[in-house]
């Protein structure tokens, strides 16, 4: 009997996953490490130390960029107490990056709210995950999965050395306790990042451009987490035109859920028969 190739099937091993979580940026960040079965207390200490590095990185970015913190640099910019010219290099770099994304997405992604206030929150979480991933690699960790409120970046494998992919489930927007689909991340030649945006998240915080879309939820898999995150947001905002732009211009896989629950997907999300 031929084995059906199921990219979401994981080989049975004694590998243990260890997870640490912390709260930041209004959500919960999960850091998951894959260890060999022999891993002992030393590894547990290493995990705690590595997670502390990730947490510090998230907190520092949040302190600079959060509009929920009155004393943050972003809040001072929003109030006009500070100009971009005198802003920190970090702030200006992210502002430039966000503006580049606005151009690349033909305005579907914007770093400014309709009232003109600079809001880089659409970029900062992805940026934080990206930087956290770099830190983990710099610490010599190869097999891990970072998840910040549903945006994911992986490295290596949940079964170190096996080449097996990390399996990500994608929640059904109509019932967040069930999965609508799955996607294999990492592995050989696979996308390393997956991000999902919803029209209802944080009280409709994605601003729709005219025409808009009726996408209730959009998931994008890409090589890097900032691309995945921004394109997911841009497609919710920019609708079908942005979806087609994304699949033409970037190496991405997309699963979009219409408000009526029907699906649109690129071939990579199609079940192999």
């Amino acid at each position, binding site marked *: 009997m031929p084995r059906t190739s199921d990219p979401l099937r994981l080989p049975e091993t004694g590998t243990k996953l260890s997870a640490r979580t912390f709260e930041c940026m209004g959500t919960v960040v999960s850091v998951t490490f894959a260890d060999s079965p022999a891993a002992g207390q030393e590894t547990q200490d290493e995990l705690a130390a590595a997670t502390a590095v990730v947490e510090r990185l998230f907190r520092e970015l949040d302190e600079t960029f959060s509009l929920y913190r009155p004393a943050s640099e972003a809040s001072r910019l929003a109030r006009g107490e500070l100009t971009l010219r005198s802003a920190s290099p970090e702030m200006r770099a992210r502002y430039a990056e966000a*503006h580049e994304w606005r151009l690349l997405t033909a305005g579907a992604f914007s770093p400014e709210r309709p009232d003109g206030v600079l809001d880089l929150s659409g970029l900062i979480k992805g940026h934080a995950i990206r930087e956290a991933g770099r830190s983990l690699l710099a610490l010599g960790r190869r097999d891990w999965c970072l998840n910040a409120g549903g945006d994911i970046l992986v490295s290596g494998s949940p079964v170190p050395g096996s080449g097996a992919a990390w399996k990500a*489930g994608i929640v059904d927007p109509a019932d*967040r306790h069930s999965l609508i689909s799955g996607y294999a991340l990492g592995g050989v030649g696979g996308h390393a990042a997956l991000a999902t945006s919803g029209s209802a998240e944080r009280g409709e915080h994605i601003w729709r451009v005219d025409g808009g879309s009726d996408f209730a939820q959009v998931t994008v898999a890409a090589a890097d987490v900032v691309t995945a995150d921004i394109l997911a947001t841009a497609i919710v905002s920019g609708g079908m035109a942005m979806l087609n732009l994304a699949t033409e211009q970037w190496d991405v896989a997309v699963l979009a859920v219409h408000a009526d629950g029907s699906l649109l997907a690129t071939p990579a999300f*199609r079940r192999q028969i």
Partner: protein
Amino acid sequence: MKARGTLAAAVASAGILLAGWQAGTQAGGASTLASGSNTTTAGSTGSSGTGTSGAGSSGSGSSGSSGSSGSSGSSGSSGGSSSSGSSGSSGSASSGTATAGTYQGAAVQTRFGAVQVQITVASGKITDVTALHLTDDDRKSIQISNRAAPLLRTEVLAAQSADVQTISGATVTSNAYLTSLQAAIDAANL
């Protein structure tokens, strides 16, 4: 005071916008260049690789003759080397001044299946590039387009929450996390 700050911010944004626009334009140019060099790579692979289909048929003829002259080689290895030798001769012929004709590159595995490129050379210039094979493992022709298409729920990759290591969804708040699937997975791995 605030008005002045806003004005300064607007001027600064315009500056950065312009810088971003230039960066974007340059990136676009670079990607065009990259695809151009890709074509060149495919072309050079083609000329040094399998050679023309015409050379292929003449190659089988030359493999016969080299087989007869190759007294020291084993028949298996001389067969293998002679076939590459035939393409080598067509390659050397084309290396002087690119001979007009069509050349096929090696089949390359991509996310969309095996892809092979054929180039047409005339007057020392590549005049046409054609994708020859575009098949998946089952040798069915597949769509190279990555466009999203309507799918039934039963047609997308399925996943059970017990089988996944992580969960993607629209950003959950800290409160919503407590009752989320991700929280259950994290708890199981603590």
